[in-house]
Every structure is written in C-alpha cells, then in structure tokens.
C-alpha cells in the first residue's frame, strides 16, 4: 500500500513540477558541443483537443481500502468542447477481493464482513484541464502533459441494486503524440449505503491508469484569426 502511495506521489510530483528554470534560460542557446546535453526548447501545444473526441481505456484499483481490494477496467469517452473543457461518459466494472485481514478476523474474532460490494459504476460528467506543462525525459525527449480535474454523476451497481453516486477525479495526461496519451489519475467515488441497519458513506478511491486515443488522430487545423 505504501508503495502505491509513494509511486502516485512521485509521479504527481514529477508531472506537476514546472520545467527547470535553467531550461527556460537556455532557450535559443543550444549548440553542439559544450551545451549538447542541455534541454531543447519546445514552444506551443503539440496536441490540440478542442473539437476532438477521446476514448480512454483504464485499469482501476482501489488504494484506500485495506480490507477489500476492488479492481477492474473501464472506458471513458470525452468530447472536448474546448482545450480546457470536455464532457465525459464513463463506465467501470470492478471485482472485489477480500484480503487476508478479513479472513483473519473471521476466524479469530468471529467477525464477518458480508456487505454487498460494488460491481460497476457509470455516468456522465465533465472534465476541466486548467494546467499544462512539459518535462524532459532523459534529457532527450520533451513530453507535454496536462492536469485535469473531473466530476461526474454516477449510478453504482451494488449487488444488483443501483443508486446514485458522485465521482471526483484528479489526473494527468502525458501526450505521446497527437493521437495518444498516457493517463494516470485518482478517482474518488462517493455513495451512501445501508446494510443491516448500518448507514455509511462509502468513498472509494481508485487509481486509474490507461491510454487515451484522440479522434481524429491529428490535430484539427487552427482557425486563423
């Protein structure tokens, strides 16, 4: 568990860090020879999302539940109304797996966990991308990234019964070209439950990773002003 958190934190840290100041100062001063290993400067946004569709396939796994691990796969379709805003339609199917802790308390304490578990969730929402950036990978590649937040109304399927839920997410995309990006993010799914008279609000946090395909595969032509 700690490893996962550490990994997520490291990735977030790397992604959110602004490009090194030194790179900015060296713009236009890259020469062969002495300065060969300095960062190249890349201007502008290589991937334009406005007016394009994207489809993300992701693997999701809960990261805040030590007792029941839920993991599964999902799809998210987005229509990017503007560079920073998109409507989304998503769906995720998950399976639940009780950890050894649950079996341990069952036999040692005669406590049993038999709550109905989440099977799937799906819904509609929006995505907002306020932050853009780029970073150098091994000093050879300049990769562009952005950070987005998303919110969605969801219907969760809990052992056959459906009920409303809310989804909030924070993630980053690392663009691998005009048509594809790698996606990593956290999604928080909140819904209310009542089982055997016990009411509870569930807040499942999923770590999502996946690939996004943009359509059309190339940027749309910029409008000239």
């Amino acid at each position: 568990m700690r490893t996962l958190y550490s990994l997520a934190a490291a990735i977030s840290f790397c992604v959110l860090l602004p490009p090194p100041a030194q790179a900015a100062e060296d713009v236009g001063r890259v020469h062969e020879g002495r300065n060969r290993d300095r960062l190249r400067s890349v201007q502008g946004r290589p991937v334009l999302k406005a007016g394009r569709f994207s489809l993300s396939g992701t693997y999701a796994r809960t990261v805040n539940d030590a007792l029941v691990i839920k993991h599964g796969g999902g799809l998210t379709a987005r229509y990017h109304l503007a560079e920073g805003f998109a409507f989304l339609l998503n769906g995720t199917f998950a399976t639940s797996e009780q950890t050894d802790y649950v079996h341990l308390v069952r036999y040692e304490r005669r406590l049993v966990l038999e709550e109905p578990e989440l099977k799937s969730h799906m819904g509609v929402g929006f995505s907002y991308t306020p932050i853009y950036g780029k970073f150098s990978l091994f000093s050879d590649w300049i990769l562009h990234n952005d950070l987005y937040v998303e919110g969605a109304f969801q219907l969760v399927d809990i052992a056959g019964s459906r009920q409303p839920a809310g989804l909030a997410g924070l993630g980053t995309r690392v663009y691998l070209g005009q048509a594809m990006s790698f996606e990593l993010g956290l999604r928080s799914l909140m819904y209310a439950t009542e089982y055997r008279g016990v009411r509870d609000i569930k807040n499942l946090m999923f770590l999502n990773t996946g690939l996004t395909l943009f359509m059309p595969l190339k940027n749309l032509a910029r409008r000239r002003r």
Partner: protein
Amino acid sequence: MVPGGQRRLIAVLTPLLLTGCEDHAFYQFKPVCARQVNEAQALQRSRPVDILFVIDDSNSMIEEREMLASNISSPCGIDENPDDARCGFMEQLIAATTSQNLPDGETYFHIGVITTSLNANTGENNPGGVELPRFGCLFAGGSGIPVVDSNHGNHAITLVSDRIRAINQGGGDGFEQGLESMRFFLRGDTDEPACQDHLERFLRPTARLIVVFVTDEDDCSHRFDRRPPGMDATSCYVEQGGIPKIPVEDYVSFLQGLKADPDDIAMAVIGGARFDPDPLNPGPESVPCNGTIDCERGQICKRQRCRGSGDCAAGNTCSPSENEPGVSYCLPEDESRPPGLCVLGEAAGCNLDPRGTALPTEDSINPVNAADRCSVSGGGAGCPVPVQSCQPCFGDRSLRNEHPFCCEAEAASRYFEVTDQLFAARDEGFLYDSICSGDYRGTLRDIASLLVIVPEIELLQPPADPAEMRVEVLRRQDDGEMVREIVPYHDPDGGELEGWDLTCARACQDLCTESGTCARRWLRFHGDDRPRPGDRVETIYLTQSDEEVCSPLVGSSQEGGGP
C-alpha cells in the same frame, strides 16, 4: 481574495482531500451456526424371528379374521423395489429372508397361529371334521404344517392366510383367554399327543419373539377350576363379582423370563380401542377431568365417571347411568349437546396413553353428523332403534367399515396392561391398533418393521444441504473385514435405482413427501447400495442453521478500516 478559477478547483478537489481509508461493517456471529456432524451407525446384526398370532376365535370376530387374512398380504413390486410402500406384512418378511444377512441355513421367520379358546376343540359344532384349534397347539388350518417358515417362500402367504380364515369353522369359546392361551403354548403345557413338538419346532432360543393379539374382547384368562358355577362369558367383564382373572403380572413375569434379552420380546395388540383423545385438541365431547375416579386432574376424558357433580367440570352434571346401576357419569347440562358418541367399547376412559399411539380417537367422529351420534341410553338422531350402541354399529356388521371407529369392541385393557408393564421403560417393542380399524395393513407393516431391519438410519440432525452430505458404508465381508464404499446421492426424480436420499420418517409414505415441510432426517438407501445388517454407515454433514442462532446480531457491527 481567491480567484474564481481557483475556488472551483478547490471545490472539486475537496472530496479528494477528505478521502480516508475505507470503513466496513463487520458482524459478529454466535459461535455455532452450521455445525458439522460426523455420525457412525452400525446396523445391528439381524436375528431370526418367531411370530405368534393369538387370534380371537369367537363369533364376533368373523369379519375381523377375514380382514386380517386379507390384510396380511399386499402384493407389491418388492422384487424390483424393496422400498415399495405397498408391500404387506408377508411380502416384507419374505423379502427380508434374503436381505437380513443371516448365517447360511438359518431360517428367518417362524409363524404360528393359536386362538383364545380353551374349548374350541370339542368338535361339537364340527361335524365335517375340520381341524379345530386346540389349546396349547398351533393351528394349522388343515394344512398339516403347524409352523410356517421362510423356507416356504411365497407359499407362506397362502399358508398363513388360509389358517386364519379356517379359524372358528366349528365355533370358538366365549371365554376369550388370549394371555393364558399364549402362556399355555409357550410353556409347553399341552398334553395333546399330536402337538407335543409344536413348541420345539416354533420357538428358537436365539430368535426374537413377537406375540400379536387380535381380539375384540378383553382377556378373560382365569383358572378353570376357580370359575364360579353358572357364570357365562359375560361374567368376564363384570368389574365386581365376575370371574376372578389371573393377574396380568403373571404374564408379564412369564414373558420377561422367556428371553434373556428384553429386546427379544415384542408385542402387538389389535384390540378394542383405548380412548385416546388429544389433550391439546379436545373435541366438543371431551371433558376436562377434575381428578376423581378415572383420571388425574388435567387429563381429558371422554365420559368421566363421577360420584357427585363436584367431580365434573363446569357445564356438566353427574348423572346416573341408565344402563349401569350404581354408576354415574359427568354429562352435559345442556341436553342439546351430544352426550357421547357411538363407541362404547370403554364406558369411561381417560387419556391413559400419553405415549401416543396410532389408535383412532373417538373425537375422530364428526359430532355434527347425526349418523355418528347416539346417546348413552341409546337412540340419538342417528340411532333410530333405541339400543345401547348406535345403529350404524349395531346389527348390520357390514356397516362397520363405514364407521371404523364405531364398533362394539370391548377395550383390550388387560392386553394393554401387559404391554404397559412389559415395556414400561421403553418407547418401542410394542404396537397398538384398533380392532375397529377398517384396515390392518398399516399395523401389520409396522409389525414387520419391528422385525425386519430396514436400511434406514435416523440422523441426529436434519442436514442443511443433502448435496453437501457425504455418506459411506463400511461393508462387512465374509471374513469380517470392513470395506469402505462411498455411496452417491440418489435423485428420486432422475430415475436412479441406487444411492441414498433423505426422507421425512421411517418408511415414509407419500403423505410426508407431499407436504415437504418435514425435517428430512431419515437416511434411506436404494438398490445395491443398501447396507445390510452388520454393515456400518458413516455420514458427515452440516446441520441446518438456526436463523435465531446464526443471523448476525444487528447493532453489533464493528467498524474495521484500513490504514
């Protein structure tokens, strides 16, 4: 001031910041929910059986003997299906001859028939020379075969039924002495030259013995030399001043001394019905007993004798009987209530049989039906002729079967006393049935079940799921070694002929399978998988969970969270 864009960002991110580790509600179970039961039961080794029928040969028993002769056999498909519920007494015994694992050469059953008469062998009413029952001798019915045994095969059915039908061709004795007749024969007291070897041929020291009494009168066993002169058979049933009878304790001690093992003796009485109402469901004529003459306080009586009205419950008054001088009964003050039913076999009686038998109860008669009703003095709405018993039961004997609980049988009280004393501390080994029953097949089948070891085993608990049950049979080989064999489940709907299944009760008939609500705890085997006497059956299963015990305790949830 925080810019608007950042406020939106903060609002969206807030749920993420509030996210902690996920909680779960645990429930605590009581320690026992579904308990695994491991059972091992050995089918007892089978034993040969000697069956002695003591049959009332009086004239009043003509129809009953004919019915007994007919009911002793019920053809069935026992060769194809050993569990065929239609199989009669003789069919079961004959089939058991090969299934009981007896040592080679051992004869499984001996059947003998004697009667209750002392003087039926006078021959006065037998000008045709038909064989008559003789006191102390087995009655062969003219067949020349006093003991019917399993070596006779299917012919045994004819041999037994024919001799039952042949009883009383010359007229029986009015003094029915079933108990003394039994003892006289089993003690070998006869001096008849022709039957000196009957007892030796019939009774085996290693065999179990069952005595089946079939009579519509009480026992009148008495010392011949002490019978007061001039007394006829009716003096047998007079409580005071009648024929002094041999105490039943004498017969009890005789039977106890006959076999070393008490389990080797069994007894069945098909006799006059003993009043056996259901205390939990008294009929409109049942009288709560105040605890005086016939019963203890709290018992339910049909007609309670009394000394005064104080002995009777509210709504009843103590009224002298018109037919029994000096005897009073608690009768309803409201004369419109039916004061009694047809059965007068026992003038007064209480719930003397708390063990509960299959005896029909007088409450079984519908009091609303006028034809089922009559008054003590005779002649209710259904009794046009003012006689003591009601019309359907009197005169035309063919109507008896239409009113099976309505017949003129005297209660077989002394026989009941013998069984009560002989089996006082036991719940099995004896059977009762009413001679007024319209059919004796059920009782005869029950008698066979006392003798035949059937491969059915009662489990300690009803299993929760038969599909999860494991059944193994340890089969005894000729050399004594036990070989373990797993027996598969028998799907009755799948046409399977072997395996095991669960049923509601031993020899369960359609009645309990239709309801489907009974606890299926009898393990029944089929076909070649049936264990045989001497085999051992081992079962492993989970008991049915008790909802009250096993459901999670609401409110005892405990939160368990991650890191």
